[in-house]
């Protein structure tokens, strides 16, 4: 069972950020939300390991609630 990999792995992080923002261009908030949800589901299926996904869900939630 692999672990959630938290090392920086993207060769071009700016390009990913740009691609994500670009994907949302012209969408209203509800459509944006569905796009993100579709993206999460696609990536979750690609990862395919429930334990890794649970760790990612927990970390995503924790990072959002921490005071800077």
């Amino acid at each position: 069972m692999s672990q959630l990999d938290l090392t920086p792995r993207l060769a071009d992080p700016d390009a990913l950020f740009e691609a994500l923002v670009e994907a949302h261009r012209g969408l209203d908030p509800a459509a944006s939300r569905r796009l993100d949800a579709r993206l999460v589901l696609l990536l979750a299926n690609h990862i395919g390991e429930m334990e890794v996904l649970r760790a990612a869900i927990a970390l995503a939630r924790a990072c959002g609630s921490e005071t800077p």
Partner: protein
Amino acid sequence: MSYQPPRFAFRQPPELGAGGHGECRVAVVGGGLVGLTVALDLSRRGVGSVLLDDDDTVSVGSRAICFSKRTLEIYDRLGLGARMLAKGVTWNRGVVHFRDKIVYEFNLLPEAGHAFPAFVNLQQYYAEEWLAAACAETGLVDLRWKNAVTRVEPDGEAVRLEVQTPAGDYALRADWVLACDGAHSTVRRALGLGFVGKVFHDHFLIADVVMHRNDLPTLRRFWFEPPFHDGGSALMHRQADDVWRVDLQLGPDAEPERETEPARVRARLEAALGRSDFEIEWVSVYTFRCRRLERFRHGRVLFLGDSAHQVSPFGARGGNGGVQDADNLAWKLAGVLNGEAGVALLDSYDAERIPAADENILNSTRSTDFMTPKTEAARAYRDAVLELARTQAFARPMVNSGRLSRPAVLRGSPLNTPDEDAWQGGVPPGAPAEDAPVGAAGWLLPALADGGFTLLLFDAEPVELDDPGGGGVRAIRTVLIRSADAPGALWDREGLFARRYDARPGTAILFRPDQHVAARWRHAAPARILAARDRAMGGA
């Protein structure tokens, strides 16, 4: 109307002429699907009962319509399987729509080599009518219609019931009470028992509609956000006699009185069906709960079916779950009443059926949460799944329009003897028997329905058992099954028994009276067989 419900005659109970008091060993409270099933199962085991029902007819409306394979197998053991199969509508295909598009179609593709299909749709009233007739035929079930239980008081080694009838009231002292009186159980309220679980606030409109047209395929059709209806979901399913079940989600703010007004119902159904050539037979507006009692056994009162646990209707887990409760309890209670088992065996009813109920509640809760998203985020994910599922196969298993009933595998049961030998799959202890074709045209399951335990030996000689038991539930009957046709043995004609049970020459499998596997071995050793039987009787 497509169906004329029977009116069962009220007969004056003998207690009214005998000082208003009586006694019985088993009182079944509630003559619905589950109460009639447990009374019939007990009678097949030689145990009589008094069945008390406050009404004098069968279920109003179709109610539980999807009878699963396991339920049909249980009814086959009780003598009603063929009739249900013949009258019910066998279905395998389903289609899921999102708004005006098809998301995907499925086919249950039932595995060949089983006597019964995955599901048939049959109105609950047919099952109840046939069960009541079968109960009456046994002469062991005292069917008392228009006998309403009003009070329930545990009284030492018995339970005192007060019963109200049109001819007067009486008291009945029962050694055991089986509470099968539904979601609004009088027995449960009398004992002051609460539920654990979740209440859902969405209202649903359910209707039975007669359409004498056969241009509609036999499909389970489900819509998320249907274009013809402003609620969240819709379901349409065919039953016997050209009756169709239509289920429409109305949302949390619907007013039941207004929603059952005939003109309003007709308008909704015309929109849903796209036609007006139908008759409405039954309409109801309901909400549902996914919850259960903390325990199903309370001393000498045992709860079965909706009185013990409730689920949403979308997984066909209510009726099928209740029938499995009856299947689980009847042989145990018969064993206790025959003096073959200690009272502690009844605690295994909790140990086995609570996890089964929890599985049903979990599946039902998840289906409901998918169908009725409670937050914007939940809705976004739900819609995202549906949007992906149209083109992406990986997303289809996430579409949840109801996870259809599967028989409970009693994995952690204290009655199971854990495996000691090595198995490649097969049917593990706790699982219900898998059917297989045997002989020229027969089936395996009827060979496991003799009342007691069955020791099935594959390509092996019989073993000598010191204590096979008498004629009750504790008795072990040996059945031989062989890969080749031979006298005195079942013939595993297509090799499916060997494949399904991972059987090799010498394999021995011990089945309980309810056809669940108690234990299995690569080679039969008499001492182990008897120990496993005694354990399954609550002795270990």
